[in-house]
């Protein structure tokens, strides 16, 4: 899970490693993921989202498809 300056840099990095480029995430989307995962992490009742919950979180941010599906068996 890495930062890149642009989509061109993502493609360049993937090409150099023979890897397929994956969907990119904007910084505002990443902040929403960070808040959803971690805003209560220091509290006693904190927990990780379960797989069905993760699907909903990703979908709400427009992150859809098998790549973002924690239960996908297509990879």
């Amino acid at each position, binding site marked *: 899970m890495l*930062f*890149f300056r642009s989509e061109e840099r*993502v493609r360049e990095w993937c090409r*150099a490693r023979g890897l397929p480029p994956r969907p990119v995430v904007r910084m505002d989307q990443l902040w929403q993921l960070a808040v959803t995962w971690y805003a209560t992490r220091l509290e006693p009742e904190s927990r990780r989202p379960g797989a069905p919950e993760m699907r909903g979180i990703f979908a709400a941010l427009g992150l859809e498809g098998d790549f*973002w599906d924690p239960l996908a068996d297509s990879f």
Partner: protein
Amino acid sequence: MDSDTAVKVAVYRHFADTGRAPAIATIAELVGAGDQEVQESYGHLAKGRLLVLEADGRAIRMAPPFSGVPTQHRVLASGVTYYANCAWDSLGIPAALHRPAEVFSRCEASLEPLRLEVGERGPGSSSWLFHCQVPAAKWWQDIVFT
């Protein structure tokens, strides 16, 4: 509060206060338990994906978003330096602390440095991107690689 929860809170608050992983003896003292009991709780928390342990089962590699080892993703908040496990977790640290922070990282392709100011409502406008090579279904097959 049950013993696993007490250990979890003590570990996470130690990371938040110091930016570093606690020694198992430190947590034992904080929760009033023995090292062995704390290690058992570590195991339970690792199964719940709230900790990632080193092979000895006693040292903490990750208490997401915090990293127990230095990484390329550094976060500075209120004078404390933290290390994040990945790009996502570098924003996760200010989100967990509820404090403004500066994130220092890099573009993995060009190695151009990234310095991002993160307020309590998130980072300002930025054209930088996040990319993950591993699909969500496989993140925890090798979370250190992910």
